[in-house]
């Protein structure tokens, strides 16, 4: 492809997305539908900016699904996955088997041979991971019961793709089908060795994730080249996808597993924030490609047939899912979310259909109709979500169900306190909080320190705390207090700016190394500023007073008063320091401020005197026998 072609095509794709997605969002349709519409518009049947290459783009963009599964794995610690095992096997397997059986029965009823019927049924029984998970995440429903079950089903379907692709060649009507089409390089090996290779690949991912990837990330992090970290994250995902392809497993499944392995690592949030935009772009591209692939000519030729087939497909899938939801005791509102959400056919449908075409299992007419039904049902899905939200849910419940789901999400593992900087200052704050039962999430950008502290059982994440996406990944949207223990005033200023812009609900508590940093932070509107040079210096001063015969209590009170006085003074001086004149240099400004301060100390009597236990005025007043 010529470079100009590439640029022209990119322009078309990006422009379509940039125009359609915000419009769709504004209309309350969600981003997925926006991408799909964009795809239809630029596709060969409407404006025709792009032609048949849409399918290649779809294959390329499917990689977005792979990254998405990796990111989902990152959110899911091994323990949590293990707890989901019954759901994945129970709900997932019954969905695939029951749906496939039902569709196959219908196909046979329509007069298709049983082999074709089975292939079509298997292709259509799978749902769209990309659309469903993206929509659930966008609507913040991933943690709800229906969302969790949807996820379990989708995960099982990803696993099911492997045996499906394995048995399809056996269905070939025309024995002349080319066996070398079986695409995996290890396809020719004996079955025993194949199994062994598959097991080996899984072991490689598990062990590699544990013992290779984390140390590698540590080295990369230490180099402090940001894009290198992104490159490494991509390398991990791509290489696992490749490995999976070699042994004939689903790439999405492999990266998902890798994600789960890395979910406990300190780089989790950094990986998330690095891959998130790439995933978003690729998924968007994927949805556009799906939209572009809808064959409007075919639909126009037999609209009734395709419409009724699509409707029948979704009705069958919905019914089966709804019954399963009932059996597994989903609340009715959650069950609608679950059953409606998964009632479309998915991107694996395209894969299986094209595989089926190569294997001569079905004739091309059936396949193109099947493809159209898949694309159409995917396009309808966002509308179903909207219908569920606007029409069905309000009738079923008064929204309490969703609230409950959100609450449990918060209790989960996001801490209410985030501490940036795990040096001596931050770790002291953290230890103190932990000693009092408050767990904090720590952010630090020194990989060695992060590594060391994780060994000591602290929840520390590697990353740049001034980046909004990293903060979001670390749970800044759910936390209530943000402590900055960073020692660099520049970083603190940037952090304060980011926090106030993106997370205005957070209470910010910030370390300042001296009064000049404090002035800057006050200027930026940070209210809670803690000067590291205040309390400790006064404490030392108090001990000096004791050496000079001051009572311990008197000295302590003097210290307390001085700290309070100084807290007030620093705020007042911060407000007035720019009044008098422009200072040529910061150093001169500092000297001038120091002078003002000393003057104030001398004139303010409250610093040193209190009258509580002075007996003289008392004696004078009471004494002289009035």
């Amino acid at each position: 492809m010529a470079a100009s072609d590439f640029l022209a095509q990119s322009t078309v794709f990006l422009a379509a997305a940039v125009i359609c997605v915000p419009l769709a969002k504004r209309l309350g349709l969600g981003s997925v539908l926006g991408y799909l519409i964009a795809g239809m518009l630029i596709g060969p049947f409407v404006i025709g900016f792009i032609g048949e290459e849409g399918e290649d783009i779809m294959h390329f963009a499917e990689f977005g699904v792979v990254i998405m599964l990796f990111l989902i794995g990152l959110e899911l610690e091994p323990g949590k996955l293990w707890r989901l095992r019954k759901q994945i096997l129970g709900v997932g397997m019954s969905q695939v088997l029951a749906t496939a059986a039902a569709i196959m029965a219908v196909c046979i009823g329509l007069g298709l041979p049983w082999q074709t019927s089975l292939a079509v049924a298997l292709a259509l029984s799978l749902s769209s991971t990309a659309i469903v998970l993206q929509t659930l995440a966008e609507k913040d429903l991933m943690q709800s019961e229906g969302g969790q079950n949807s996820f379990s089903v989708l995960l099982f379907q990803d696993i099911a793709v492997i045996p499906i692709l394995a048995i399809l060649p056996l269905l070939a009507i025309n024995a002349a089908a080319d066996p070398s089409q079986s695409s995996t390089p290890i396809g020719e090996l004996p079955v025993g060795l194949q199994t062994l290779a598959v097991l080996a690949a899984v072991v490689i991912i598990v062990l590699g994730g544990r013992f290779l990837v984390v140390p590698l990330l540590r080295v990369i992090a230490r180099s402090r080249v940001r894009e290198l970290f992104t490159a490494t994250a991509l390398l991990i995902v791509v290489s696992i996808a490749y490995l999976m392809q070699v042994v004939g497993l689903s790439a999405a499944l492999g990266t998902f597993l890798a994600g789960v392995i890395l979910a406990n690592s300190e780089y989790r949030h950094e990986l998330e924030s690095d891959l998130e935009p790439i995933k978003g772009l690729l998924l968007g591209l994927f949805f556009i490609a799906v939209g572009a692939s809808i064959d409007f000519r075919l639909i126009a030729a037999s609209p009734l047939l395709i419409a009724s087939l699509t409707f029948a497909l979704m009705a069958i899938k919905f019914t089966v899912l709804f019954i399963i939801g009932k059996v597994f005791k989903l609340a009715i509102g959650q069950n609608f979310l679950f059953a409606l959400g998964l009632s479309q056919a998915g991107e694996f449908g395209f894969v299986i259909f094209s595989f089926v075409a190569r294997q001569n299992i079905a004739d091309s007419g059936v396949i193109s109709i099947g493809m159209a039904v898949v694309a159409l049902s995917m396009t309808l899905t966002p509308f179903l979500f909207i219908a569920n939200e606007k029409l069905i849910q309000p009738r079923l419940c008064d929204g309490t169900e969703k609230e409950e789901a959100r609450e449990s999400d918060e209790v989960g593992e996001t801490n209410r306190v985030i501490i940036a900087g795990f040096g001596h200052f931050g770790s002291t704050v953290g230890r103190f909080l932990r000693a009092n039962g408050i767990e904090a999430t720590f952010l630090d950008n020194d990989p060695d320190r992060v590594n060391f502290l994780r060994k000591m059982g602290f929840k520390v994440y590697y990353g740049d705390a001034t980046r909004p996406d990293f903060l979001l990944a670390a749970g800044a949207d759910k936390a209530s207090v943000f402590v900055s223990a960073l020692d660099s005033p520049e970083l603190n200023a940037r952090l304060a700016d980011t926090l106030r812009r993106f997370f205005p609900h957070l209470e910010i508590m910030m370390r300042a190394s001296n009064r000049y940093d404090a002035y800057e932070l006050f200027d930026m509107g940070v209210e809670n500023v803690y000067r590291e040079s205040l309390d400790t210096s006064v404490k030392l001063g108090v001990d000096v007073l004791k050496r000079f015969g001051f009572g311990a209590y008197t000295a302590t009170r003097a210290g307390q008063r001085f700290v309070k006085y100084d807290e007030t003074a620093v705020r007042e001086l911060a407000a007035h320091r720019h009044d008098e004149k422009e200072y040529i240099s910061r150093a001169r400004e500092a000297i001038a401020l120091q002078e003002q301060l000393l003057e104030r100390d001398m004139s303010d009597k409250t610093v040193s005197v209190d009258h509580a236990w002075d007996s003289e005025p008392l004696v004078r007043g009471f004494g002289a026998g009035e």
Partner: protein
Amino acid sequence: MDAIENQNMRRILILFAHPRLENSRINRQLLVRIPAAENVTFHDLYENYPDFDIDVEHEKELLLRHDVIIWQHPFYWYSSPPILKQWIDMVLEYGWAYGTGGNRLKGKSIFNAITTGGDAQAYCPEGYNCFTVTDFMRPFEQTARLCLMDYLPPFAVMGTHRMSADQILEAATEYGKLIESIGNGEFDIEKARGATYLNEVNGEVGKRGKGKDDGGF
């Protein structure tokens, strides 16, 4: 070893509370006269706990090691300075000092040694303070009783606003002698129970308390 020398020897713990000793006229003098004996422990609460963070275990240990406890403090606003209340709140734990199983202080004697600005006449129904010192001491008395301790009348240096240096010295000497006699067992605790002030018990009934001045707090 001391116990062998004198079977009646008592170990005394002085819990001292004055927020600003350096400005004090009377209490500083009283401290000077406290005998520097092995069986007398002087414990300055404000000096040891300037941030009011009382070491409860240490305080309990001290209590267990002594027979007679003295709460020595100026009589501020008809009571003690706040750290002594903090000490009472923190140290006299339920199940240890009182309540179920709380009998660790049983049988110990305890009293207040106070300094008041007003003289004895101010502390009576006709005086401007309206109540007697004994009345004002009720919370301490009942605290001690609940802890199964033997509460004795206070040692009181009264009318301090008008005391001359000689009078202060005299009071301090009296205080020192009281502690000494309690310590060596000569002091008659039985006799003390009936008195209004411990000052009376050793015979020299608070001469100064009968002064004519009507000032002071």
